[in-house]
């Protein structure tokens, strides 16, 4: 078996399985072996569904032999952030409170992925109830960033296990969720591709919430093409999600022409680029030049209203999170990680007027981004302003001065949770310390096709997405 198979793309795996060049059982077994070998150190998984995954792989193999492939992901293993409901498998949200919660049904997107032939390897580590960007978890231990396991750096969160598993070859693809950057932050810190689709594009039914009006769910993969393939399966109207869009789902893979000639790219200066560390800024500027060399038309643009996003996002997320957690906060306060409990408690001091002002700022930010995208196809910015901090690091220095690590990690991603625009994090460099640097491409609402086309075209002319961490 090829040594490259653990890092084969989903599109390649699906093709190889369909052609019977490799069997689903071999692929699943290979990943289970890698999980057994490395997850004791990396801690990407909370639950490994070894027996169920092997059973599903055998069924997939039999179906293939009988000429009855299930769909475009037939036999391809994936893993799920542990807030996606899975029938018969514990779904903990990384918490002690839900440690024994076993859903009776799959989340809508999990059902769709299984129907397309995907096999669930297991449930992935996350920040408790998705409330934090560092990737830490007091209950289950913090996952380790595979790029620097020896010195114990943050994987980023809240979809920490998703970032680690995909980067380390413990799953070909994973699902994450993103309320302030929780797909794009671990994607950036772990050197993978992570797509936050437009709000309403992918059903949230059966996915435990943090803040309903900010929550997005999406794929975390090693290539933009893989995100395109997964999004096609995941997206589409779902009557079980009140925010679900009825817009038809395009063929995202077919949109990946590799051609960005004439594509108008707005490089986000000011708040975005100036806050980045010098090496992150240089990498993103270099990425802009790479797109320009491929035929894109790059100009610079600023979004002044995003300066108010921190306050607006805080007012909205703290209020919605408190509303969801009020019962447990009263009856089981000691079962929360103290840091997460504190974040929830602070929501009690946000007034209704602050919540509405937060929503007003969201309207301003949305309109400003829409205006920038009226004359451009995508916007380009760093995904995180710095590379992965150490696990114990609480303060850092950005391009515009000192910052709390938590605030720094979430600073550049959450504007697009406030606005709902699609945004895709893509690796665009390595730091002097060998840590991944990530950028994000942002598009018009429901135009994930253009975002993914730009990301894929960038990956055709660069090789950052092919770099792998060396595991101990």
């Amino acid at each position, binding site marked *: 078996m090829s040594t490259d198979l653990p890092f084969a793309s989903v599109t390649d795996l699906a093709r190889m399985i369909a052609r019977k060049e490799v069997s689903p059982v071999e692929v699943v077994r290979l990943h289970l072996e890698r999980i057994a070998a490395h997850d004791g150190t990396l801690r990407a998984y909370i639950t490994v569904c070894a027996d169920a995954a092997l059973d599903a792989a055998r069924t997939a193999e039999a179906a293939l032999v009988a000429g009855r492939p299930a769909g475009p992901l037939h036999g391809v293993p994936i893993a799920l952030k542990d807030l996606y409901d899975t029938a018969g498998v514990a779904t903990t949200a990384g918490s002690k409170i839900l440690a024994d919660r076993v859903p009776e049904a799959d989340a809508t997107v999990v059902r769709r992925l299984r129907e397309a032939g995907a096999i669930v390897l297991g449930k992935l580590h996350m920040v408790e109830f998705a409330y934090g960007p560092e990737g830490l978890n007091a209950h289950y231990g913090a996952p380790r960033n595979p790029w620097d396991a020896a010195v114990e750096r943050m994987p980023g969160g809240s979809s920490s296990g998703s970032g680690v598993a995909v980067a380390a070859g413990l799953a070909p693809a994973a699902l994450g969720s993103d309320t302030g950057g929780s797909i794009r932050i671990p994607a950036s810190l772990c050197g993978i591709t992570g797509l936050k689709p437009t*709000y309403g594009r992918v059903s949230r039914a059966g996915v435990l919430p943090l803040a309903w009006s900010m929550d997005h769910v999406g794929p975390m993969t090693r290539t933009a093409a893989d995100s395109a393939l997964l999004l096609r399966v995941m997206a589409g109207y779902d009557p079980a999600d009140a925010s679900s869009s009825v817009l038809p789902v395009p063929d995202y893979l077919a949109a990946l022409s590799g051609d960005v000639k004439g594509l108008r790219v707005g490089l986000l200066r000011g708040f975005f680029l100036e806050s980045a560390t010098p090496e992150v800024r240089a990498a993103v500027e270099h990425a802009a030049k790479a797109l320009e060399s491929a035929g894109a038309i790059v100009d610079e643009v600023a979004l002044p209203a995003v300066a108010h996003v921190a306050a607006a996002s805080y007012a909205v997320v703290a209020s919605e999170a408190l509303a969801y957690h*009020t019962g447990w906060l009263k009856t089981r306060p000691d079962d929360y990680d103290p840091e997460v409990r504190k974040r929830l408690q602070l929501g009690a*001091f946000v007034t209704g007027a602050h919540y509405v*002002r937060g929503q007003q700022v969201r309207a301003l930010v949305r309109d400003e981004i829409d205006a920038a995208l009226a004359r451009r196809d995508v916007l380009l910015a760093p995904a995180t302003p710095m590379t992965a901090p150490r696990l114990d690091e609480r303060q850092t220095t950005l391009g515009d001065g000192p910052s709390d690590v938590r605030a720094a990690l979430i600073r550049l991603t959450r504007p697009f949770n406030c606005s709902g625009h699609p945004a895709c994090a893509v690796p665009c460099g390595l730091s002097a310390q060998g840590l991944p640097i990530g950028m994000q491409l942002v598009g018009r609402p429901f135009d994930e096709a253009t975002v993914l086309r730009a990301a894929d075209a960038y990956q055709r002319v660069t090789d950052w997405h092919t770099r792998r961490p060396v595991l101990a």
Partner: protein
Amino acid sequence: MNEVFDIETLRGAARVSGFGWTAEELQTLRPAIEAALRLLATLDALPLGAVEPTTQYRIL
């Protein structure tokens, strides 16, 4: 806003939200509460009067 809140004021605010947190808990929380309120006060300073708040999130 740099207002400093005493524990009884915070206890009253928490009680309005339905939480009976102790003085000790609120003392621990107080720096974070005051930082959060300073952040929220920046929203009060914005000219948002005529802006329609986002409520439907552009569902199509």
